[in-house]
């Protein structure tokens, strides 16, 4: 296929963790049976938490809006099952805290809220398409959960020339994007064409790591009819799917340091799963209430790629996957490099939850921090060209001004530094602490 291109261009730094994708990459997507209960946190995205628009004991249908967006950088939230709202209050959130959430107990049916579907949306104006995305509550499904419509509303002074679709899935273990690219390539391509239309862009490229040849072939085939969509197969290297790294690998452009955005390099990046959500929102009128995620790890009976409803509790998913092994040590929500270790399995999956990993003692590392031996591994691993060991030292010494000068705020928190550290120093954790302090100090001023 002419528009399937291999490229050896890549970004500086990065690491090559073992992939662990074999357990699930060939497993077709299965549908998780409707859960009896869902917990839908109001904060599932970057930005302001959604504002509830239902009350306890209201009956809701699948897809019905239950919370409104609270500002521009916010999204609405939709019921993911049919039933009754039984509680609105603080419940355990994957981030480890208790956060406001709406709880729905299902009645066993899956009655859909009537939806507005669009016929031939590509012939329509941009504005109803964008409205459909806004109304569907779509966030970046690659993991960052940034409201998608914000990235579809470039300020007038920014000129864009390229839409980049992220099919890298560079996190070990995760295979859900791989599966949707293999099984639902047509829907992804429909989504890409809608995104191009909304952004008034002609060209789109899809970046896929070279460990997913089947996915690349599938997407190239599905997009064969559109000469303005090309698929570029790039090196398998973490964090290839990092927004800035992907832009660098595909275009050679470097997004300037914050507050600059990819738009400042003339591009917008969306994940493949987000493309499907956009397509479903526009074509079918279906809001963002379900997604495909990967269940994997050495302490789960049967790894799976699962289509799950938003707010499904981990315990329901575990049961469907045959339960956990007795040597279960750690549950990771997301990928192993950037995911969060769950405190309890009584937490829900969110819109942007791309994986659940169940790890035994053998696979779950713990940080027994020893002295930095100044080996420089972290410096060579950092894809942002920072010196993580230096940043870590500055955080420990609370030298905030120097920390800022050394570029701590440019850290993308990918974890390559801590991965590569032979002294097992949780470098990225120290840098996150430093960034939080810097941000807090900036707000005070």
């Amino acid at each position, binding site marked *: 296929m002419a528009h399937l291109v291999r490229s050896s261009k890549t970004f500086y730094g990065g690491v090559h963790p073992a992939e662990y994708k074999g357990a699930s990459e060939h497993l077709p997507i299965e549908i998780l049976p409707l859960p009896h209960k869902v917990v839908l946190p109001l904060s599932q995205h970057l930005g302001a938490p959604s504002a509830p628009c239902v009350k306890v004991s209201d009956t809701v249908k699948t897809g019905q809006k239950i919370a409104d967006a609270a500002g521009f950088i916010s999204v609405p939230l939709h019921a993911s099952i049919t039933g009754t709202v039984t509680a609105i209050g603080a419940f355990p959130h994957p981030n480890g805290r208790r956060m406001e959430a709406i709880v729905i107990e299902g009645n066993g049916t899956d009655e859909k809220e009537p939806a507005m579907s669009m016929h031939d949306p590509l012939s329509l104006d941009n504005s109803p398409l964008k409205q459909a995305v806004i109304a569907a509550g779509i966030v970046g499904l690659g993991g960052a959960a940034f409201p998608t419509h914000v990235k579809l509303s470039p300020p007038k002074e920014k000129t864009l020339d390229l839409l980049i679709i992220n099919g890298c899935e560079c996190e070990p273990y995760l295979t859900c994007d791989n599966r949707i690219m293999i099984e639902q390539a047509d829907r992804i391509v429909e989504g890409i064409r809608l995104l191009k239309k909304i952004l008034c862009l002609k060209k789109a490229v899809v970046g896929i790591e070279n460990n997913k040849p089947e996915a690349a072939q599938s997407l190239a085939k599905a997009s064969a009819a559109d000469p303005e969509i090309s698929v570029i197969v790039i090196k398998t290297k973490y964090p290839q799917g990092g927004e800035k790294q992907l832009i660098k690998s595909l275009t050679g452009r470097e997004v300037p340091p914050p507050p600059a955005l990819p738009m400042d390099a003339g591009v917008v990046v969306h994940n493949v799963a987000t493309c499907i959500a956009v397509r479903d929102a526009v074509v079918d009128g279906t809001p963002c209430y379900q997604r495909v995620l990967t269940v994997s790890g050495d302490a789960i009976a049967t790894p799976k790629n699962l289509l799950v409803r938003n707010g499904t509790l981990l315990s329901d998913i575990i049961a469907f996957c045959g339960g956990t092994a007795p040597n279960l040590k750690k549950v990771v929500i997301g990928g192993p490099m950037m995911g969060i270790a769950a405190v309890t399995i009584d937490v829900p999956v969110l819109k942007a939850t791309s994986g659940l990993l169940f790890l035994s003692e053998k696979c779950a590392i713990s940080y027994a921090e020893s002295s930095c031996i*100044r080996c420089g591994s972290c410096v060579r691993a950092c894809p942002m060209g920072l010196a993580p060991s230096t940043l870590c030292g500055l955080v420990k010494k609370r030298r905030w001004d120097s920390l800022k000068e050394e570029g701590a705020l440019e850290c993308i928190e990918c974890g390559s530094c801590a991965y590569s550290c032979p002294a097992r120093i949780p470098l990225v954790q120290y840098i996150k602490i430093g960034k939080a302090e810097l941000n807090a100090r900036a707000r005070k001023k």
Partner: protein
Amino acid sequence: MLAVGPSPHLARSDDTQRIMLSVVIALVPAIAASIVFFGFDSIRVLALTIAACVVFEKVFLKLFKNEGRIDDWSAVVTGILLAFNLPASSPWWLILTGSLVAMLLGKHIYGGLGHNPFNPALIARIFLLISWPTCMTSFPKTRFMADGISSATPLGILKTDGLAKLQASLGGSPFNLALGNVPGSLGEISALAIFIGALYLFYKGYIRWHIPAAFIGTVFAFTGIFYLAQPETYASPVFHVFAGGLFLGAFFMATDMVTTPITSAGMLLFGFGCGLITSVIRLWGGYPEGVAFSILIMNAFTPLIDRYVKPARFGKIKSRKP
């Protein structure tokens, strides 16, 4: 109970302990060479130095309430490297003093592993060299040389007796120098054995080419210029590359992670500085050999180099449209 902890939840398999153990493994060819050339004396010096360093490490970890681990192999590495810097005829008290200095003044007064600015083995070598110059500069001949009388190193002969005497003593064969069949300290004599060991560390990615290449390259270029100008006064650059402790220094001491810069550019600068200082000392200094001094001096520059030579931060390329 689920374990919680910060991301990432994966780590590469090599930890500090493994890196240090690999350095020990990489030193095995040079250990073997020293045993071949110096026999039992070599085993005696090595065993005593390693044992002393490990014991002192344990003592100081405890004394200074350091949480560092005795089983991280770092004391063994220091022990071997210190032994490599001693003559095979070293008396026991010299070895014990050296080990004490390496562990205390070289490492633990700064806070132990990772905090020492200078290479501990070299601190000890220089301490001993200044304190007991005779002990540190009388080297037994190797087992393959006539008569077991102490003699000077090739660099020593060059410094005190001049080029003609050196050429006579080497017998015109460069192989003796590269293989190590010349008088010298335990581990510095065989450039070949050191290089083989270093290849293993290159393969593992624990040392990088920058410092050794810049170090040896600078010595070669610098001494080469003077050799070309006045071949009757100055020894050839090939001699300078294989003589003395340059290989040991360039591959195993100047690549010590703790005391050298963290960036590639910084490493090149470090290696260049080492090569320059080594050459200047060898050609015009009071001592015949300058490798140890050069590395210690550049160790002192490491914080400065790290401050000014930084990795290139992402986002500085202002490219916009294709």
